[in-house]
């Protein structure tokens, strides 16, 4: 009996080692970037993807030998990407709040894979299994104690990861370069006072970290059935969990954390099915527990290890040199030109809608309906990010709660979908409120990562229960949701449902505007600058945060429900999966999270940009003939991801978004001319996110 258990444990450890080293490898690279630049580089996965694709392209498709392929993809492309990212983007964000660089990294996560695909003309295809860097990597096996057999690829990845960890640790501890990098991490200014060029040091740190991303990408690829950016992003989140074990700054502990996660998952996989035989309550969960493990670990570490949150930002001793943060919101007095602009905008919108309703073909009506439903979801980002100043990466999960609730109520109890949507909003609001409680003591980047962990947890576990989605039907779209009927009014046609959605959107927009002007809105805004300051004027940050999360979750839930009613089925993977929902934040932030216009423009862009602009429909209409559209068009829909992913870069300097940017600039000039003292009180409270 005992011998058996012992054997099982050893087997599990051996089994867990290869994926564990993969996690360790990514965790190392992530920690390296975090340690040396302070950037929470979620784009690490995208960088890994870039090298993996180039390796695949050169080696598998163009038939280059391994070494030149490896050299180009890992030792040339990867550091080059790091160089560009640092010198073009992150260098300029060094004094920006960490949340800004996080948002930019999210934008890059979206943009980089598309840039790579476009540049290399690459299209992920099923069954196109990535190759490793050793010949016959996935077909030659080496058994250990007759318990488990390592493939060549696995052995190679383990060897490289271990060697890389040792080399890195030695570099940091024993070399002058490593010492300089550590110095820059703590204080670029103090480093400069020592006569060392901080810029140059941090660019080499970025190149090194990016080299790691590339190496990890090429080594990991053979573990995936196909090359897809989403998988690389997933691995990064798992690796963050591993790195969190080492407080995100310790290389050896990140390595051990990665291995431990791999082994723990293997152990769970071995033992949980057996326990489930004895304890029937475990049975429905047995397949869901293990994939969720990293995310649960990450969430718990974030919530219960306060030391982690302080680890990186061990205060710069020369922080006193920085000017006080620039206030980004100038209360805008509505001017005459503003009224003209708004009137024009509204007129344009109305005209567009009239054209759409009278002339629009079915495809346009369908896309517009989708856009209207999505806009309701995006308005939830206006509340949580624009108003309350938090970056939430689980709005997709909240929307999915609304969608699943509607589906379940309709499928099981034949409830009207509209009732279902309201119920979905309420359930989502409750989930949001519950989630916000453990997050009370977190701030900034850490809220973003905790919500990301929640989104992945939801993705791995919650979606697969029979009382939410269904274990099998989540991706395939057989969770059918009917269209509503109100009395004599049947909304089966896209046109009539679009009218209904637009009405709901209008109500939601007005509600968000009213909210932002109400006392509650002021309270939410007051906490975004400084919770301590808010507390001192009698606002409870706890209440504000619970409120912000539940309102935003509720609205996202409503929007999610409307979206699946509009699409007539729950397509969880395409609509709500964590990676898909990242793009929502990117769009809203690019257009501006501060006002509802940003959310609406973002949603319109999400659904219509491809059809209207990239496929040349609009130009064709302007030129009165589809034949005269320039040969350049149609262009790939991936340009949408590139454009708006890169659009987040301006977030750091203009968190108000492109729509507000010009207006704010005008107002700032005006405000500088005639300073009003009472403005300044509000300004201080509304200091940037």
């Amino acid at each position, binding site marked *: 009996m005992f011998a058996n258990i012992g054997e099982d444990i050893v087997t599990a450890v051996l089994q867990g080692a290869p994926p564990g080293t993969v996690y360790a490898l990514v965790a190392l690279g992530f920690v390296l970037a975090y340690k040396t630049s302070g950037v929470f580089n979620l784009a690490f996965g995208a960088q890994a993807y870039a090298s993996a694709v180039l390796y695949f392209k050169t080696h598998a498709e163009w038939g280059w030998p391994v070494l030149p392929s490896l050299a180009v993809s890992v030792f040339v492309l990867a550091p080059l990407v790091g160089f560009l990212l640092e010198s073009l983007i992150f260098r300029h964000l060094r004094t920006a709040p960490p949340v800004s660089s996080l948002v930019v990294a999210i934008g890059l996560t979206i943009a980089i894979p598309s840039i790579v695909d476009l540049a290399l003309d690459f299209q992920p295809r099923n069954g196109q299994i990535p190759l490793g860097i050793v010949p016959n990597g996935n077909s030659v096996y080496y058994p250990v104690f007759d318990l488990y057999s390592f493939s060549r690829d696995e052995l190679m990845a383990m060897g490289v990861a271990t060697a890389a960890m040792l080399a890195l640790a030695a570099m940091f501890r024993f070399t002058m370069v490593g*010492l300089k990098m550590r110095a820059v991490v703590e204080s670029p200014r103090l480093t*400069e*006072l*020592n006569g*060392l*060029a901080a810029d140059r040091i941090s660019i080499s740190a970025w190149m090194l970290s990016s080299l790691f991303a590339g190496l990890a990408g090429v080594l990991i690829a053979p573990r995936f059935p196909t090359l897809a950016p989403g998988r690389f992003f997933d691995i990064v989140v798992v690796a963050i969990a591993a790195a969190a074990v080492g407080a995100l700054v310790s290389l050896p502990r990140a390595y051990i954390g990665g291995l431990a996660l791999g082994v723990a998952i293997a152990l769970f996989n071995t033992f949980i099915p057996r326990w489930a035989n004895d304890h029937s309550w475990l049975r429905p969960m047995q397949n869901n527990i293990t994939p969720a493990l990293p995310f649960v670990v990450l969430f718990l570490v974030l919530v219960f290890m306060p030391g982690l949150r302080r680890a990186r930002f061990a205060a710069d*001793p*020369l922080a006193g040199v*920085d000017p006080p943060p620039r206030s980004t919101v100038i209360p805008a007095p509505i001017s005459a030109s503003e009224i003209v602009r708004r009137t024009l905008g509204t007129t344009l919108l109305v005209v567009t809608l009239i054209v759409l309703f009278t002339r629009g073909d079915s495809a346009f009506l369908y896309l517009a309906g989708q856009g209207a439903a999505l806009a309701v979801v995006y308005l939830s980002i206006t509340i949580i990010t624009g108003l309350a100043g938090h970056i939430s990466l689980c709005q997709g999960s909240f929307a999915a709660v609304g969608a699943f609730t509607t589906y379940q109520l309709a499928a099981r109890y034949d409830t009207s979908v509209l009732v279902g949507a309201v119920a979905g909003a309420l359930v989502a609001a409750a989930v949001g409120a519950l989630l916000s409680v453990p997050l009370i003591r977190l701030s900034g980047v850490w809220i973003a990562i905790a919500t990301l962990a929640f989104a992945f947890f939801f993705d791995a576990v919650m979606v697969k229960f029979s009382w939410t989605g269904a274990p099998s039907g989540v991706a395939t779209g057989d969770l059918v949701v009917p269209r509503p009927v109100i009395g004599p009014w049947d909304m089966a046609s896209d046109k009539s449902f679009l009218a209904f959605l637009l009405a709901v959107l209008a109500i939601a927009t007005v509600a968000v505007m009213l909210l932002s002007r109400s006392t509650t809105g002021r309270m939410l805004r007051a906490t975004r600058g400084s919770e301590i300051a808010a507390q001192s004027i009698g606002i409870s940050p706890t209440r504000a945060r619970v409120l912000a999360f539940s309102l935003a979750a509720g609205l996202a839930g409503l929007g999610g429900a409307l979206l699946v009613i509009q699409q007539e089925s729950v397509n969880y993977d395409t609509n709500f999966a964590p990676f898909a929902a990242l793009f929502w934040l990117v769009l809203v932030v690019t257009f501006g999270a501060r006002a509802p216009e940003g959310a609406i423009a973002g949603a319109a862009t999400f659904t219509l940009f491809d059809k209207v602009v990239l496929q040349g429909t609009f130009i064709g209409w302007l030129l009165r003939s589809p034949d005269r559209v320039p040969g350049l068009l149609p262009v790939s829909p991936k340009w949408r991801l590139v454009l708006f992913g890169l659009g987040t870069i301006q977030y750091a300097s203009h968190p108000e978004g492109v729509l507000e940017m010009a207006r704010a600039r005008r107002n700032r000039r005006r405000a500088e001319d005639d300073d009003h003292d009472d403005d300044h009180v509000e300004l201080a409270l509304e200091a940037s996110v």
Partner: protein
Amino acid sequence: MGLGGAAPAKNGADVSAALELRRVYAGYGPFRALFDVNLTIAAGEAVALVGSNGAGKTSLARVASGLVTPSEGSVVVNGRDLTRAPAYRYARAGVAHAPEGRSVFATLTVEENLELSIHRIRGRKGLKAGLEQAYALYPILGERRQQLAGTLSGGEQRMLTMARVLVDAPRLLIADELSLGLAPLMVQHTYEALQQLRQSGVALLVIEQHVTHALALCDRVVILDRGTPTWIGSSEQARTRLQTVLHSPPTSN
């Protein structure tokens, strides 16, 4: 009002001036901290910067070492205009700045803190000698060489900061709140080391609470008030004048 021209004696040696601030305005974002500052420090000259809290002494020191870039005017170090240059160029031009307070790398050991600048100036071969020199100056640092600087006491961190700039043997040494937090014996050591550097031709810009110490070391005194030098004179002149200034209540901003 530029009082630089009214300064007595040594600013004839403009060509080899260690530091020249010409009509400098500087601040933090929209906030202005320095107005129309003119100041020349010749090689080997020691200047004490005096003024009440918030007068702009630290800001002036930051401008002189490149940490804060002036919005107007220019900064010339050893004949080179470095106005818009990053701080490391100032350091390479021979400016060593010991900022006020605990300005050490808390996560590096004492030895690593010192190695950073010693290695740059003297190379790998000179590392050992440089470290020995620092430890001879402040023996306690030698005892703590493997300890993380963040775990040192305030006074020890101050010694570490001073050790770095003293061992640098720069052209211009700037010390902000020089002796704040140092034990009397260590203050004395530090002043002796500064005196030696001065004799070997290093220019000094000293910001100091103990004005008597500073006056004994320095040739000239600059009084800063609300961001602008209001008086420049020799130490002797300053002694009589400061009696009155220091004992009148501080000006409110």
